[in-house]
């Protein structure tokens, strides 16, 4: 298991390859929980991250949903931000220059209401200097197909991934929706349609009711559940996907410490993303990176890749 005579003296290797990107370590930020990097650069050295994934972008800016947009739930939270964003152009003009200062991959999360919007956004982003990979958020409804969610219908997903694959030469990550019967099947479709990696899980749809008002608490009625509450579901889904695809997996959902990150890596994720936990502890990503290193040293591993997918099942 990689125990060498002087293993205590060696700093273990933390770097991993995802879809052709070389990451210093497997810890990324989850889209929508880290803005465009500026706000948290006050709190931590972005250069230490494995990669940064920015808030989801669409070709034109969006206002998002009315408030309340968030509500806390037991060990989790629902959000219905409604994909508020500044749009691809403003991002390229105002935010990318800041991100280009750093020596880490910048992964841009994006989405659209239609396949054309996806293609258009992917093309615009592919031509921008400093975008290292694209992450497609397919947990949004398809206007043309009568608001069927792209990521829950196998056919629709196949179409949109195939189309975007043709529109970009950048590494393409498909972010899977957990609101499906068979996430392994969805991952397999993404792989066959040309994805270089899959990331999971996006949020799980939920609702909280204000019983006195007899209304949902969120103005949007439903929202997406994230945080530790969903972690056991997310870990199980990563494991299911690991069994059926060859492309790398970026695991996320409720990670708040190094132990949680290790659960995902061992279950088959080659990298992890941290979302809601940033809100609780702006320094959490750095603490997780340090925790992973400590774990490898303590357990006598010399390379993080030794534990990826190492789950022994009964």
């Amino acid at each position, binding site marked *: 298991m990689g125990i060498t005579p002087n293993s205590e003296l060696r700093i273990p290797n933390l770097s991993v390859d995802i879809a052709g990107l070389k990451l210093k370590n497997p810890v990324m930020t989850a889209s929508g929980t880290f803005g465009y990097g500026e706000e*948290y650069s006050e709190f931590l050295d972005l250069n230490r991250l494995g990669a940064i994934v920015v808030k989801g972008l669409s070709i034109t800016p969006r206002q998002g949903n009315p408030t309340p947009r968030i509500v*806390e739930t037991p060990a989790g939270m629902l959000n219905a931000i409604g994909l508020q964003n500044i749009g691809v152009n403003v991002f390229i003009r105002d935010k990318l220059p800041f991100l280009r200062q750093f020596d880490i991959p910048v992964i841009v999360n994006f989405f659209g209401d239609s396949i054309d919007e996806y293609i258009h956004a992917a093309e615009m982003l592919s031509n921008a200097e400093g975008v290292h990979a694209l992450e497609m958020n397919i947990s949004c409804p398809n206007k043309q197909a009568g608001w069927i969610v792209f990521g829950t219908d196998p056919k629709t997903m196949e179409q949109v991934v195939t189309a975007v694959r043709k529109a970009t030469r950048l590494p393409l990550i498909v972010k899977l929706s957990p609101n499906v019967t068979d996430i392994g099947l969805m991952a397999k479709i993404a792989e066959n349609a040309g994805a270089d990696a899959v990331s999971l899980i996006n949020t799980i749809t939920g609702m909280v009711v204000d019983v006195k008002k007899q209304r949902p608490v969120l103005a949007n009625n439903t929202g997406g559940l994230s945080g530790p509450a969903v972690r056991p579901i997310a870990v199980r889904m990563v494991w299911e996907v690991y069994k059926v695809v060859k492309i790398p997996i970026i695991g996320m959902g409720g990670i708040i410490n190094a132990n949680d990150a290790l659960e995902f890596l061992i279950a088959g994720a080659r990298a992890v993303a941290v979302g809601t936990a940033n*809100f609780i502890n*702006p320094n959490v990503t750095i603490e997780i990176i340090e925790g992973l290193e400590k774990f490898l040293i303590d357990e006598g591993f010399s390379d993080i890749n030794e534990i990826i997918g190492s789950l022994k099942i009964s």
Partner: protein
Amino acid sequence: MSKYFKAKTVDNISLNKHFRLLNLSPLSDIDIPQPGQFYMLQTGDTCDPLLKRPFSIFRHEENSLSFLYRIRGKGTLSLSRLKSGDIINAIGPLGNSYPVPDGDFIALAGGIGIASLLPLMRKFKERAYLFYGARSKEELVMMDEAKAVSKESFITTDDGSEGKKGLITDSLMKFFNSLPITHHPLPLYACGPTPMLRELYRIIKSKIQNPKSQIIECYVSMEEYMACGVGVCLGCVVKVRSQEPVDSSQKWIYKRVCKEGPVFDIKDIIWE
């Protein structure tokens, strides 16, 4: 110096059934907070409650931060369990602050809103006309200090157990009407429940629409559910009038209470 720091609980004093005063001693150097700014405080140490909660800075002294809070739900209940010596994480100071008043000013506090306004009144001693309303005498916390640092004070309670019985905005209205038209307009700072702020807006709007009255500067501290407190989650937005709207059919944009706020010009907010 980081805005994310650990702090030790000095004490967590019960003022009455609902209100507590939490005194923290930060364990590292911190930035100096300005009146109107706030902190995100950890309230427990498990995953429930999960998120930090926002609280206005109530008092800052060398190596000490105080927060005045009302127990509302599970976060504040959990906060009320902190005991001397317990260590929590905090983020702050966050958000903008009240613009510095030129001379005298009006402070309009509804209930726990006093927590956010007292630092301003304390800093500009005896320059505030204080309007402080609450449900009952018991809920008029910190009234003695508030009165002591004010030039003049007007108190109301819903039940008449202290001060005048009635709404604090009615007292404010009367005060306005009693001032000579030529009186130099006083800037107004308000913090309190949304219905109070909405009523305040109605008052201000009627004054603005009255050509004889001078325009009042009026700043309100807004509240919204917050997840991050630092501007990344977009959970805490309010509608603000804008010349550069995102959607050309609408003359507003969303601004983040935690970043562009919590203090806004009352006239910029779209009150629905």
